[in-house]
């Protein structure tokens, strides 16, 4: 007999070896449900209100864009004062330069161009404490970023975070010359293709609470994870985290939406269900999805340099996409017929000091960093 508290994992090994998760789409799902989705938010920090209107799409559909255009969108204060939002891009309605009253309650009124009207519950606007710090810790395979905050007013118990990451990355090789209609020009600093910056917004729902704590402190809330050796942390990385206090109702909504869309797949899942938000149909029981909330937003940005990483993570660099073997050459006489998209690296002169007989070049993905995302413009904050 072994001691009772022995751990086993052969079992786990069995389950993990045998158990499998595979991609699966049931045939039955082909419903043409078309439901209005409202995502409304009042930002009291920059005094804007933004409402996104769209329709749900088929599960198999690749086109996720189904905006509701030309709708009438208004925000109504509890004293019945109304403010109309105007459509800036398809399905996006905005209002700027407003002075929202943190003590007042607001509701959202939407009338679609088909004439269906929807109203939200009256919402309270929340004050948001500042972010104390954004920190990171090295783990075995990368680094994890954490958010910390506390509310000296002891008013905020529920939080939601959003973030936008930006990282600097480069192409494998440097293109120093460009070709315009068969003529070679050296590249100026402003049209170099070597260095890029890519930005990405968070796609996960990040919500946390201090409901069960004796003090209103959020400590080390995990925000995101960066795998070591990836392009994100190949030179310099930055993240701006936006923090927003939520009402209890809003927290419940977002946290349930998070479970329903990101948290399923375990052995002990609860049944998924239709999640109702705080927007209702005025005319009949037509389903409407989404949420209307508002309050102040606080933010903080940090930078992480490649040099800051501990040695074992810095050593994890992914191999470059291209190296010297990918460099090819083109003779001078062939240049006039070459397309403008040909990216040149260096002139070839043989023997040394003699006139140029051609240029070296490589495929675009070796020379243009944009093929790995992002743009060539350095962001303001960089």
């Amino acid at each position, binding site marked *: 007999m*072994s001691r009772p508290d022995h751990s086993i994992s052969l079992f786990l*090994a069995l389950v993990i070896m045998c158990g499998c998760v595979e991609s699966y789409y049931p045939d039955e*799902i082909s419903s043409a449900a078309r*439901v209005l989705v409202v995502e409304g938010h009042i930002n009291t920090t920059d005094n804007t209100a933004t409402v996104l209107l769209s329709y749900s799409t088929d599960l198999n*559909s690749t086109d996720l864009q189904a905006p509701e255009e030309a709708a009438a969108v208004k925000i109504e204060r509890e004293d019945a004062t109304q403010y109309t939002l105007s459509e800036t891009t398809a399905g996006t309605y905005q209002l700027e330069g407003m002075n929202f009253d943190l003590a007042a309650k607001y509701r959202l009124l939407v009338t679609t161009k088909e004439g269906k009207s929807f109203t939200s519950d009256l919402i309270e606007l929340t004050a948001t404490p500042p972010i104390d710090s954004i920190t990171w810790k090295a783990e075995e395979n990368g680094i994890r970023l954490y958010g910390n905050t506390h509310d000296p007013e002891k008013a905020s118990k529920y939080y939601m975070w959003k973030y936008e990451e930006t990282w600097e990355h480069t192409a494998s090789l440097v293109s120093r010359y460009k070709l315009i209609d068969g003529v070679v020009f050296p590249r100026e600093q402003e049209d170099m293709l070597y260095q890029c910056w890519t930005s990405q917004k968070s796609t996960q729902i990040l919500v946390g609470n201090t409901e069960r*704590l004796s003090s209103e402190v959020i400590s080390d809330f995990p925000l995101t994870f960066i795998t070591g050796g990836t392009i994100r942390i190949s030179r310099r990385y930055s993240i701006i985290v936006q923090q927003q206090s939520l009402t209890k109702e809003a927290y419940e909504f977002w946290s349930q939406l998070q479970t329903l869309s990101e948290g399923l*797949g375990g*052995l*002990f899942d609860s049944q*998924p269900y239709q999640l109702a938000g705080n927007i209702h149909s005025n005319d009949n029981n037509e389903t409407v999805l989404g949420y209307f909330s508002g309050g102040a937003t606080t933010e903080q940005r940090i930078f992480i340099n490649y040099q800051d990483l501990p040695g074992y993570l810095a050593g994890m660099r992914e191999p470059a996409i291209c190296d010297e073997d990918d460099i090819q050459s083109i003779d001078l006489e062939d240049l006039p017929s070459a397309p403008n998209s040909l990216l040149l690296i260096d002139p070839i002169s043989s023997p040394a000091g003699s006139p140029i007989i051609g240029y070296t070049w490589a495929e675009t993905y070796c020379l243009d960093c944009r093929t790995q995302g992002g743009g060539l413009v350095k962001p303001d904050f960089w």
Partner: protein
Amino acid sequence: MFKLYRTCFTCMLLFLSLTIHSIAQQSNTISVSYNSSSFEQVVSDLEEKTGHRFYYDRSHTDSLEISLSTQHKDLGFVLEQMFSGTDMHYAIDNHKNIFITRGREIMSNLPLDFFGNNTQHKDDVTAAFDYSAYEKREKQKKLVESRLYNIGQKTTSLLGNATLAGNIKDATTGEAVIGAAVFIEKPLIGVATDQFGFYSITVPKGRYELKIKSIGMKSTQRQIMVYADGKLEIELEQEVTPLKEVVIQSDKDVRVMGLQMGMERLDIKTMKNMPLALGETDIMKVVLTLPGVQTVGEGTVGINVRGGASNQNLILFNDAVVYNPSHLFGFFSTFNPDVLKNVELYKSGITADYGGRLSAVLDVTSREGNLKKFSASGGLSPITGRITVEGPIIKERTSFLFGARSTYSNWIMRRLDDERLQDSRASFYDLNLNISHKINDKNNLYLSGYMSHDNFKLAADTSYRYSDKNGSIKWKHIFNNRLYSVLTGGFSRYDYSVESTANPVNAFILTFYIQQINGKLDFNYYLNAKNTITAGLSAVRYKISPGTFQPKGEESLIAADVLEHEQGQESAVYIGDNFEFSPKLSVYAGIRYSFYQNLGPRNVYIYPASGSKEASNIQDTVRYGAGKAIATYHGAEPRLSVRYALTEHASVKFSYNRMRQYVQMLSNTTAITPTDIWKLSDRYIRPQVGDQVSLGFYKTMRNSTIDISLEGYYKTMENLVDFKNGARLLLNHHIETDVVNAKGKAYGAEFMIKKSTGKLNGWMSYTYSRTFLQAKSENSSETVNQGKYYPSSYDKPHAVNLIGNYKFSRRFNLSINMTYSTGRPITLPLAQFELGGSSRLYYSDRNRYRIPDYFRTDVSINVEGNHKVKKLAHSSWTFAVYNLTGRQNAYSVFFRSENGEVNGYKLSIFAQPVPTVTYNFRF
């Protein structure tokens, strides 16, 4: 008396008279005259007269009465006369020694030239042959079977009835044999032994052949002459090879002739022959192969019987309630196969002595320790090691049985490189201890203790621990042959804790427990041959700690949150009568009346009479003091079973029962999780009430080797608990705001064909069953699927099971298990939409779709060591493959939003064939 012997030993007599003559060779003549003399008197007289010396076993001769008168006959003639009509034999050697034996004659002289020379040893007295042990047993058995047992004081009047009672035991271990059929054929009167192996049968006075049949045991019979009430203890022998049979009913005749319907009994031998996952015999998995029993997925221990939820099953282990019979999140049940004796599952026709759960009763009984000798057994499978030790404390009176099982493959884990595994831990153990003590013929004491413990942590910083403990003590007192009582006291407790210490600021420990103390007094009265009355009373005291959330460590900022304890008391009285109107018609009618109170101290929130129960609607809080009744519920639970025999081999049965349940598990996950909470009925959560009618047809064919049964049922259930969307159950101070009151209906038909004996045996069943829930309220938040009936999570309309066992030889058999069922209902997304920077899912009505159908085939080969009786240790190997075809059966289908887009997945648990080898030993 001699007359009686003669009738039953005609054959033996013939044999006797042929052989004895050659031995009787002495020629001194004597004259004797005996009139009802005892054998001893005769012996001393003959020894005096002839100078011979008698050797005999007094116990063989004490019932002999000799009346004989002869003149000048030789001793051989006298002896022959004396023993004629008995199974006694005599032999006389050359030294004037007379050997009296019973059952088998002996030779007093060796055959000529036995030792190779005919000079030596001629004069030696050679006693009996060395019978082989087997022959000896067979002989003994024949003897007890043919001997006539006189029951009661001899009288001349054979008017009226008399009651014969006693215990049926296993001859090898001294253990009680449960559910053995004890019957006479003309007229057909039969009873089954109870959980103590006790039987009581009332028959008209007279001469009978009493037959005893039981699973896994050799059938036997006793010749009885019933004069008055009396006792008869019977020992049964085990079948020589345990591989022979797959039997799921105690007796072939019981299924048709017994009153009980909707009940399946499985004994451990049957279960051990079945191919199973991970090399462990698991009763919960075996039960799943029976018609009418479903599960939501293969990784869960919860069973759904005839459309009932898994917490509606009363799971009893030696009469103590088991709240969570699962190890390793449900991949194993906590019942150690080595200590089990049998399992009874009641799906319908539940008698009045059971109560407290709506759907079914799973009564698990462990063995008693061996009363005669010490023995140990155990086994090794890929997951566990287990050992069982048993033996007498006081020989023939007190015995113990101790079983322990634990995970042992810790070292394997360290050899795995997978990070997920290095961070994960999972361990469990379970312990069993049984002590049974026979105080005297009329009083027996049984003690049983059980404990299971689990601990796991899966690649996360949160660790879980849960434990189920129970104990029971039973005192059985026999007043007389017709009346006995059992007093039972029991204690059960289930608790768990969840702990996280990764971030010291948020470190917490969450604990939960439910415990109950119960007492019960049952009487069993065999009124007469046609009536058996059972009656009793019981009381259960519940206590639940619904959740205690506390900081762990100095740095933790967690605010303690302690939910108030819940208390409740459930009492019941019952009476039932098993009445046989005629050989064709038997009826069981019973009634149970249960009374329940939810008790203080506790705060109760008050909501407006109309409108939904929401936290925001709380109007008031009422404080109930200790012992004050917060809510009181009571009601009658009638039970009825009727059997009508169409022919000797076919019957129809009908049953109706009503059940009430006052404690329920709240779980809004599909599978049972270790951290589900239990809740007592209170002001808002009313007791569940279920009614079931069922009708069945039973037939045996081909000389009772093939059984066919067809059962149909219809069930309604009131006050079921279902959950609002997004319900939060843990640490909820007002759980009534998150649950909805639902009602349910279930119906179905179960067909089963079974062959219990022969080289090829097994069963096949087909079940059609539906189960629906309905949650309807004036408040939309308390309504599910617009108030329409929707299938419950375990609604699986079609299920087919095939269990086959082929015995190639005594040492080698092959088993196959095939299972098909419709996929369980799930809720699937209908569309996707953009919200919060990513694609989200828009879900259908609850349980509108199904996961793909389930199909699995398992095989196993059992190889036994040789069957020599006198081996130090007996061992066997089981080679099994679970999911032979490697079908990737869906456990669940789910969708996730990942990096902004929606992906659909199917999760399978045993997606490949899983081979296992198990080694079992016993010595």
